[in-house]
């Protein structure tokens, strides 16, 4: 049984491949939804609350703010953001599950919710305990080095250099047990035969500072998060963790170019409501959040974060498919890694 067999998820792979090439010419995903929709029985009669399981300054905080603004611009309904950071999203999820299922409280969450459920089925499954209103950001990862680095300059020379260091080379990432970063790094190290020490930084600034200051040799990150360093020519990507490189990174080797044969994992962020919320209210929320995705302000935000390089949009069914296949992917990988899957 190869790891590859476990990892292949046809729907996800096909979807991302098509989206990589198709997004540039497609109109916005929800243009065909009606421009207006009346809420059922006057819903919502007051402001909505959005529980965000991370702080206001990080990726989740920013996408929550951008989506809340877009929904408010579209519907005139205010959304109060309630940040409940901690425990890798667990605190916010737990707090959200304790709220009334009346449609007035929605949740922002990322793929960590899916991987947490994959590791421990007692944790809520975002595709079953919740209804995904929209997935509004899907992105890929890359490996970066300093632009002025002279020990290696591209992926091939980096791999050679790392192998020569006999396990002493370092890469900064968020290497919590079972995280997308850690799993992906396992794929890479297994495929290349290189040994590299992963240094875990849970906050972005120290992580990026570690590469910029030469404390580590490389960085694992998503392009939107390090865009300023790319624009300033401080960092450069040497590997795109996608089967095919998107146009914006055409000169950076993809997995296929580098001869790495595994299915990439993605970082995704979306918005949810409780599964037992009133159906008509859920329909209105689905319309509001999906339509807001195409608001110019939200599209502009996504573009600034490199979130348009692959198709970032999934509606409810698409999100469920994404989450379900992701859970299956992680669960198989965890078993392969010898982690205790509960």
């Amino acid at each position, binding site marked *: 049984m190869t790891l590859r067999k476990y990892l292949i998820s046809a729907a996800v792979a096909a979807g991302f491949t098509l989206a990589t090439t198709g997004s540039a010419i497609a109109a916005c995903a929800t243009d065909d939804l009606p421009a207006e929709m009346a809420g059922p029985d006057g819903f919502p009669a007051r402001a909505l609350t959005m529980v965000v399981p991370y702080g206001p*300054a990080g990726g989740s905080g920013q996408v929550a703010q951008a989506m809340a603004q877009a929904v408010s611009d579209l519907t005139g309904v205010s959304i109060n953001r309630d940040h409940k950071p*901690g425990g890798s999203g667990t*605190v916010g999820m*737990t707090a959200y599950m304790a709220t009334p299922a009346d449609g007035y409280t929605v949740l922002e969450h990322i793929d960590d919710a899916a991987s947490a459920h994959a590791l421990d089925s007692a944790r809520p499954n975002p595709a079953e305990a919740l209804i995904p209103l929209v997935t509004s950001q899907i992105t890929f990862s890359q490996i970066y080095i300093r632009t002025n680095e002279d020990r290696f300059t591209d992926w091939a020379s980096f791999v050679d250099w790392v192998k020569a260091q006999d396990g002493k080379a*370092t890469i900064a990432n968020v290497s919590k047990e079972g995280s997308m970063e850690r799993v992906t790094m396992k794929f890479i190290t297994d495929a290349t035969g290189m040994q590299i*020490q992963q240094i875990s930084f*849970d906050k972005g600034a120290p992580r990026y*500072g570690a590469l910029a200051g030469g404390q580590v040799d490389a960085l694992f990150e998503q392009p939107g998060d390090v865009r300023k360093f790319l624009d300033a020519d401080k960092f450069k990507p040497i590997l795109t963790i996608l089967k095919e490189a998107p146009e914006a990174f055409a000169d950076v080797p993809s997995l296929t170019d580098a001869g790495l044969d595994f299915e990439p994992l993605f970082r995704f962020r979306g918005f949810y409501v409780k599964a037992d919320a009133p159906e008509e209210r859920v329909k209105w929320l689905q319309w509001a959040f999906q339509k807001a995705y195409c608001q110019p302000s939200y599209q502009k935000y996504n573009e600034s974060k490199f979130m348009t390089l692959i198709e970032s949009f999934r509606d409810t069914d698409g999100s469920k498919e994404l989450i379900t296949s992701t859970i299956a992917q992680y669960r198989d990988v965890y078993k392969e890694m010898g982690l205790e899957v509960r």
Partner: protein
Amino acid sequence: MDTFANFLGGTAALFGDPVGVLIFFGGVVGGMLFGAIPGVSMLTLAAILLPFTAHLKPEHGIMLFSVIYCTGVYGGAITAILFNIPGAPENAPTAFDGYPMTQKGKAGKAVGAAVMCSAIGGTISCIVMMIATAPIADWAISAFGPPEIFALVFFGLAVAASVGAKTFWKGWLSIMAGLMIAVVGLDPVGGMERYDFNMPYLLAGIHFIPTILGFFAVSEIFVQAEKKATGSYKAPKISVDFPTFRELWAHKIAVVRSIIIGFFCGILPGIGATLAAFMGYNEAVRWSKDKLEFGKGKLEGVISSETANNAATGAAMIPLLALGLPGGALTAMMVGVFQMHDMEPGPLVFINSPDLVWVVFAAMFFANLSILFVGFLETKTIINLLRIPFQFLAPMILLLATVGAYAVRGLVIDVVVMFIAGVAGYFLRRSGYSVAGIVLGLILGKIGEQTFAQAMQMLHFEFSGFLQRPIALGLLIAGFLTIGGSIYGAFFRKGPKAATMS
């Protein structure tokens, strides 16, 4: 010369625009007010204002946040001094001596010193920021990695334990208790669950703001209530006598030392003003001839803490502007303000938007100066809150602290933690343990654990790796010497064993 010309240009742009002036003064007052109310800190104000900055000019949005940062860090000192409620964690060491000064009828001197030293620390830090942002930022991130930051934290804990309680052992036990609390929740590197007892909220760990409110404010209410019940309560005398120039001049070395420490801590990404304030205070104690007087109402304690935390504000802007690396939560929100205007902080800001940078620099300079004037006016009025009888003041403080604890994350468990800390703090203080040491252990423990784990990963799990990094080695040696000195002082030197910090 270029710097001065740019500064004048930034000043002209700031005060030549009526909207900019309005926003500047709004930020000054708002930062001070929100900084002074526990729980609803400057971060709360910043989070509320963040969406609205999209409608401001970029320079106004960034300037507003930088002004709130400067005055907010100072604002928390007032309640720390008057009521033993630090407005924010970076004001906690200010309460160590500020509140005892209030009890001795010297609230005016403590508040005056906080005003003066916040302004001095912030202004000088701001000047250095204007002169040398880029080279300092590059030096900081290349010279200070996780091993060095861990060594710095170790040094800080070593100093704190030696001055924290009535005896050597109680000092260390207090620090250890703080470190134990710090390990509750997910471990910061591997994500392992620890001491959560299957309670999801504990996975996020014990938050230090409710802990600070409990150990400081709630336990103080219990102490004062006991005095009231036993008839030994004495209302603090009201005094608005500010420190004289001579008194401040006598502490010039402490000010300079705290500026250096505060600036240094501020430029390290992810460290910021809280560590600055604790380190500034610790070093003041370490170098003082009157260690025994710290914690009992020594002016130098307030001076050291408030100088250091404001010195960190200008410094924290250096990695943000030069490298795009925020040093703390508020500077991280500033990244959001930049992004709302299609900008990213970092090296290109100096090239693409020099006008914005210099308006922000000028605004921070004048915000620190304005602490002097607005701060004096503010304190002349706020000190009069002490005239409120204890039976009315105590419920108000408890209410404020409860709201503050809940406001952190909107979780009831934080209020529970605050009251548990309050009760524990009451008994620990009676037993001669140091609640300040526990809080310090908690705050530094979280940073220290994370950087230690990162350092060990970087050094391939070989302790000898520290020996090859001169700065880390120097700080570790200093820490061990401090521990050795305190052991010698506690067990071999005649006379008082250690300083008391009740």
